[in-house]
């Protein structure tokens, strides 16, 4: 039993955090809002140089061969800066899905490109209403009629759907199966789809942790500087307790996210329950974080100028995608209300 991240993982996180907080500033995000694609090839190049795009690509295909547990702290940092680039989707969702498939041609063609930063892959599941970043994806893994297809950018038709979060680029994707390659069918496809869904949900949960921390940090700074009635408003007990009330569920969501990442990386039998537990709790913490942060900002929190809304809007969106609260609480309910459920002390860690 060792429920800690190792030194390498923590150092990697630190490096990525430094890079992201320096590069993916609120100003940078606002700049990207003004561009057509909303995405920065230059930034993607930097992420590639850091080894991030190839992190989960097997070494045989030019990647680092690391797993979901190695990436989860980095996904948290992506959340902390509200990264617009589709790093989580490509590295955490798409690549492992491809790797887990039996389609060697696809792997050979695409995984090296992903590792080199030359391609991104989007994933479209029926569970999700829309596909994130389909417009810049070179390849799309699409669930359709129970199968999983791989289809290239040239062969899809996209319809843009604007989100409240200007960084999020959402598309309805249509394609003709005849121009797509079958990745998997039947049970194999559904196993891959479920795996992708779990990875997508884990990505949301990890980002939600980062977003919540960011909203706390912004709020603490704001309330420490802003004075009213002659004192910093952060000295008011009501303001303090609002932020403490965010810190508590955040603190208790962290270990659930770690467990979920571990469960995915190690094929633990309780993986669905673990992921749903993490997604539900981490996103709930982030919603409370948004609500309490805007409140302690007063009217400033309601402005476009203050950066808070960048993170709030992402938190709102992530709560509802890759399975909403209903879906994830529902999966937990199914597990714990089952006749053969092993409940209570001593049953938390299973193989």
């Amino acid at each position, binding site marked *: 039993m060792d429920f800690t991240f190792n030194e390498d993982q923590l150092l990697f996180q630190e490096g990525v955090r430094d890079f992201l907080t320096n590069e993916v500033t609120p100003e940078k995000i606002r700049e990207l809002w003004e561009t057509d694609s909303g995405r920065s090839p230059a930034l993607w190049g930097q992420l590639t140089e850091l080894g991030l795009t190839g992190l989960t690509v097997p070494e045989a295909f030019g990647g680092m061969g690391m797993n979901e547990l190695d990436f989860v702290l980095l996904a948290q940092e992506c959340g902390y800066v509200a990264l617009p680039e589709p790093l989580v989707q490509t590295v955490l969702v798409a690549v492992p899905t491809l790797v887990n498939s039996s389609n060697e041609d696809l792997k050979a063609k695409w995984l090296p490109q992903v590792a080199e930063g030359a391609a991104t892959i989007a994933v479209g599941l029926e569970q*999700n*209403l*829309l596909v994130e970043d389909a417009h810049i994806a070179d390849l799309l893994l699409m669930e359709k009629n129970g199968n999983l297809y791989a289809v290239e950018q040239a062969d899809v038709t996209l*319809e*843009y*759907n*604007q*989100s*409240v*979060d200007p960084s*999020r680029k*959402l598309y*309805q994707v249509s394609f003709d199966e005849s121009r797509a390659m079958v990745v998997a069918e039947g049970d194999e496809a559904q196993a891959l789809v479920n795996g992708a869904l779990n990875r997508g949900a884990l990505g949301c949960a990890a980002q939600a942790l980062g977003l919540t921390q960011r909203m706390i940090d912004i709020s603490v700074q704001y309330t420490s500087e*802003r*004075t*009213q*009635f002659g004192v910093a*408003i952060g000295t*008011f007990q*009501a*303001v303090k307790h609002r932020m403490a009330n965010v810190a508590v569920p955040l603190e208790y969501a962290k270990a659930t996210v770690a467990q979920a990442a571990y469960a995915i990386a190690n094929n633990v039998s309780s993986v669905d329950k673990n992921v749903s537990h993490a997604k539900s709790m981490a996103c709930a913490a982030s919603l409370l974080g948004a*609500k309490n942060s*805007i*409140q302690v900002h*007063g*009217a400033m*929190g*309601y*402005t*476009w*100028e203050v950066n808070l*809304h960048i993170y709030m*809007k992402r938190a*709102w*969106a992530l709560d*509802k*995608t890759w399975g*909403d*609260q*209903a*879906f994830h*609480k*529902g999966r937990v309910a199914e597990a714990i209300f089952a006749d053969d459920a092993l409940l209570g002390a001593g049953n938390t860690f299973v193989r």
Partner: protein
Amino acid sequence: MDLNFTAEHDAFRQEVRAWLAANVPAEPLKTYDTAEGFQQHREWEAKMNEGRWGMVTWPSELGGRDADLIQWLIFEEEYFRAKAPSRVNQNGIFLLGPTLMEYGTDEQKAEILPKMADGTEVWAQGWSEPGAGSDMAAVRAKAELSDCGDYYIVNGQKTWSTRAVWADQCFGMFRTDPESKRHKGLTFILVPLDLEGITVNPIPQLDGLPGFAEIFFDNVKVPVNRRLGDEGQGWEVAMATAGFERGLMLRSPARFQQTAKRLVELYKENQASADRDPAIRDAVVKAYMAAESYCLTTFETACRLIKGGKIGAESSTNKIFWSELDQTMHEVAMDILAARAELEPFAPQAKGVGSWLDGFLFAQSGPIYAGTNEIQRNIIAERMLGMPRK
């Protein structure tokens, strides 16, 4: 106790309903946080005034209908049911209007009220100053009487001025006694926004539109007849205005009841999906009950006021109750809409989302403006419950 409307009430309701049915624009107006929408709303105010429906609670000699609070609530019920446009001049009609009637000179009333009523002059409020938040007494903007005594020279800054981007006039408190502190030495002044020395900077809000603005005053000369009340009486006048703000005229129960109704409808339309999360059904029921409670309590208060009762610190419960209810209802709607919740209404996949996202964003401001809910809780504890201040 008699919870039936009188025949006169029923007749009044029918009259309102008929006029609205004939006059409410079939196409919703654009939001008044845009120039075009602002103009459309200004025209709507003019049409309302033509029909003498713009300020039903005003005296008939000022173009109103002498409506009492019950009639006002009936009017609002019909207004929200008819999905009639939001009131772009609510700062004027509901806040400054009644204040002017109490504190204004006959000349001021004659000059200002008609233009307020017909939408010729739309009013912005200048309550807040930068860095002051809910602290209304933290006024630094100055007004100095000119040597000749004809005008005030106004300097300083106001912020969070709702709808000021396209408004014509603004009211607020200015410090006329430079030695004074806090709520002393303040004077209530009405400032035309086209005077020389005024700069209005839009502040984009969560949806990106400029719902409010900062106003800078740089040696602005405001004629002395634009002072409301006496010099130094500003706090008293402002408290009367703020009382109207927290009082019954704004935040009609009808608004929240119609939201609750739409929430029930949204739930029913999406019931199969919504029932995957049992918390949703429960939240819808509770929200509906809360909206009804808000209505009941408001009618109860209105009846009490009509009989000569007074509204006290319990008006602070009002602010907390409606703002949290509004926030909750929109959160529940977001949960029902699930993945569609984040979509702008014009997105192709945004079927059935209606205006819930806009409403959700707007609801975020409820617990903040007109005195944050934290301030209201202090007021409730200290003034209503009698807990110790220090």
